[in-house]
């Protein structure tokens, strides 16, 4: 209750009384329109303070002594006391010395006219709130650095606290504010408050004169003191030609170096750049076979090219040709009854419905080559086969015949064992890689374990390269049919070295052997009559074939293949193909593809 009363009284007092000494003390602004009033109170060092007043309008009170100042501290037992010291030298000033100055206590002063006993003005304050410190002393500056361009520089400004302020004891803790401006400019740049006694100024321009000044205030208070005297800061611009000279030189040399590098680069990469910047105009493309491709293209590329034309069916060459033909006729019991698989395997001698040749198959639509006018009528050939009834599809063993000739011709295995279709039913002289099954092992029971053999293509490849060009040209010329002569030539190119060569070297022997198996054992080979035979050296044909290949003699009930022993090589019977053709399957009987084997075995 009492507290609230006091508060309200205080509030009223503030409202009524003119709070002269406010937080931002206005000083030395006597208001002529008013009566006698205090113009301000100040303390310099928090140890003494002074107050000034003005008579105002009432000019009759200007004589000294007419107005008197009374003060009171908010201590207990305090009463109004008169100003301890009226300064003689200064008019209307009341000076409170150390003994009368107390901080942390509130003072109230009154301006009274004793004669009239009127209180004209009253103000209350605490001493620390009216402290305006003296300006710092000893302001000086030192150059910190100059920028590389020589246009800017930084300085460090130092000063000392005012001597009147007892900073050392901690009686006053000061904060400083530095201001600077270009000389004769009206705007001062203000820096942040600094509690130390030095400050750096950055970014000053050379050849400009600057004014720097500093002032201070008490920490946590708002009253700044007066400014110190300004100092002039000036740094002359040093024309640093030496620093610029090397840089320009470096630049020039750098540019020259870059240009040289570019020129070298262009000259070294001339061709490539020519292509990039001046691409060659593409020549008109004529549909056909690119001669470049023929020169150094791969066979299967050429194959694809050729096959893209109407003559050939592409898919025909990409699949295993054997697979197409090998179709076990399991659905037709009648067929089965007629001939077993083995019969089919072994050939025409067993059954009459063996269709070794499959010249014509209904699903074989792309075999136009088979019906090339140059080639004798397939029907004629077909009639050679016994029991040909157009059931070529059913035959498990299908000869590749003529259709395979171009295929072989264009394949990598360039051992073109083509058979001249004209002379005989197309004895396939193919050298298909899948065509041969390599004997890998013998079972004790006499069976033979076959594995898909890979032709030892090292030698073949060599022959390939030799023959490729020729073959391809021949193919092109003859429509993928090589004549007998060319076949002979091609085969003549083949080195006649026997030995463990797989492939067509032994093939003819086997074929012949196969034929001999049937009919004419011990017949000597004859080059002229068996064009597909290699014109080997006489001794060589009799050489036993490599142990990798052997003729399948029989397939017994257990589906094991009985092969002839390699040693027993009856003479190759080079009978006229016409004679043996019917008995001889165009497909080498001794050779089975693994797929075929797979079909056979359950």
């Amino acid at each position, binding site marked *: 209750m009492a*507290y609230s009363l006091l508060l309200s009284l205080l509030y009223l007092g503030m409202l009524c009384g003119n709070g002269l000494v406010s*937080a931002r003390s206005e000083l030395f602004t006597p208001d002529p329109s008013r009566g006698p009033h205090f113009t301000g109170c100040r303390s310099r060092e*928090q140890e003494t303070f002074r107050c000034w007043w003005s008579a105002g309008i009432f000019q009759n009170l200007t004589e000294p002594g007419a107005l008197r100042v009374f003060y009171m501290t908010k201590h207990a037992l305090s009463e109004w006391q008169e100003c301890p010291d009226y300064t003689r030298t200064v008019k209307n000033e009341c000076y409170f010395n*150390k003994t009368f100055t*107390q*901080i942390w206590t509130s003072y109230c002063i009154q301006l009274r006219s004793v004669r009239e006993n009127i209180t004209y003005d009253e103000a209350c304050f605490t001493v620390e709130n009216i402290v305006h410190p003296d300006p710092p002393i000893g302001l000086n500056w030192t150059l910190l650095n100059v920028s590389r361009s020589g246009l800017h520089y930084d300085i460090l400004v130092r000063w000392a606290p005012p001597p009147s302020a007892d900073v050392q*004891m*901690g009686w006053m803790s000061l904060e400083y504010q530095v201001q600077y401006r270009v000389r004769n400019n009206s705007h001062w740049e203000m820096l942040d408050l600094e509690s130390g006694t030095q400050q750096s100024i950055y970014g000053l321009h050379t050849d400009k004169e600057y004014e720097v000044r500093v002032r201070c205030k008490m*920490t946590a208070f708002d009253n700044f003191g007066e400014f110190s005297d300004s100092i002039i800061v000036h740094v002359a611009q040093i024309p640093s030609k030496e620093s610029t000279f090397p840089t320009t030189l470096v630049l020039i040399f750098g540019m020259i170096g870059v240009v040289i590098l570019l020129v070298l680069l262009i000259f070294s990469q001339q061709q490539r750049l020519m292509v990039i910047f001046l691409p060659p105009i593409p020549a008109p493309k004529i549909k056909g076979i690119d001669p470049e491709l023929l020169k150094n293209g791969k066979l299967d590329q050429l194959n694809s090219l050729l096959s893209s034309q109407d003559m050939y069916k592409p898919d025909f060459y990409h699949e295993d040709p054997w697979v197409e033909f090998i179709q076990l006729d399991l659905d037709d019991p009648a067929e089965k009854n007629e001939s077993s698989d083995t019969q089919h395997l072994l050939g025409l001698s067993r059954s009459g419905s063996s269709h070794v040749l499959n010249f014509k198959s209904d699903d074989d639509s792309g075999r136009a080559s088979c019906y090339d006018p140059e080639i004798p009528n397939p029907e004629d050939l077909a009639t050679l086969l016994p029991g040909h009834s157009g059931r070529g599809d059913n035959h498990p063993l299908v000869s590749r015949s003529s259709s395979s000739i171009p295929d072989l011709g264009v394949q990598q295995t360039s051992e073109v064992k083509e058979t001249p279709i004209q002379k005989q039913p197309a004895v396939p002289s193919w050298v298909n890689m899948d065509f041969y099954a390599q004997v890998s092992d013998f079972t004790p029971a006499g069976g033979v374990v076959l594995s898909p053999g890979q032709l030892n293509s090292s030698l073949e490849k060599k022959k390939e390269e030799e023959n490729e060009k020729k073959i391809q040209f021949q193919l092109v010329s003859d429509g993928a049919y090589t004549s007998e002569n060319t076949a002979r030539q091609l085969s003549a190119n083949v080195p006649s070295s026997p030995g463990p060569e797989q492939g067509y070297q032994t093939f003819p022997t086997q074929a012949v052997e196969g034929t001999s198996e049937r009919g004419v054992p011990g017949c000597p080979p004859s080059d002229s009559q068996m064009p597909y035979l290699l014109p080997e050296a006489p001794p060589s044909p009799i050489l036993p074939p490599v142990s990798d290949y052997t003729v399948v003699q029989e397939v017994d009930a257990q589906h094991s293949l009985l092969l002839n022993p390699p040693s027993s090589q009856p003479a190759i019977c080079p009978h006229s193909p016409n004679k043996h053709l019917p008995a001889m399957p165009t497909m080498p009987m001794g050779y089975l593809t693994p797929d075929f084997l797979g079909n056979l075995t359950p």
Partner: protein
Amino acid sequence: MNRVKVLQAWLWCVSLWPCWLSHAVPLDCKDETGSLIQCTSISQEKLLDRVIQHAELIYRVSEESCTLFEDMFVPYPLYALRNQGGTMCHTKPFPIPGSKTEIQQISDKWLLHSVLMLVQSWMEPFVYLQTTLNRYDDAPDALLNKTKWVSDKLLSLEQGVVVLIRKMLDEGILTPSIFEHTLTPDDEPSPEIPESVLRDYNLLICFKKDAHKMETFLKLLKCRQSNKLSCLSY
């Protein structure tokens, strides 16, 4: 994997070593039984410097709080209140001299005890101040944070002064004096805004003054420690 784990554990130990160190030697130097022992981990000068830093910070923050409060709640005509330095501050058990000469004559012991007394006298009012400030609808967060901060710092300042007393005066711990504050927290459901505003404003002003006192005393103490001659009055 064991090696990795051992290494990790070792690294953790090493990284936490400074924490252990700091925990191992608390500032108030209490041993297991609770009795105080001489702190040897920090020198007297450093401790005094740290205490002075605390006091300076508290003083600055008190001034900022005053300004914040003023800007927010106090109408302009009442700014003069500030100038008066808080007329309604609670009185102390013993008067503190205000003149420089008198203060310079105060003994070290008296200075330290005054500081301690001042610190202890303001702990409770600040708790009260926090609750009242929370009642205002639009009290700025900065103000609330500052008052909270001051409360925390007062505690640590008290700790430091106690240690200083022990070090400099070789006295035992003092029981904290209980001051009866004239300002009692009001639990009015809806206090009148002007009254509470005035009260809080006065509180802040008084605290600022007392913080200034603390800082001045401590600085004088430091001056005396370093250079006795210049700190004495002529």
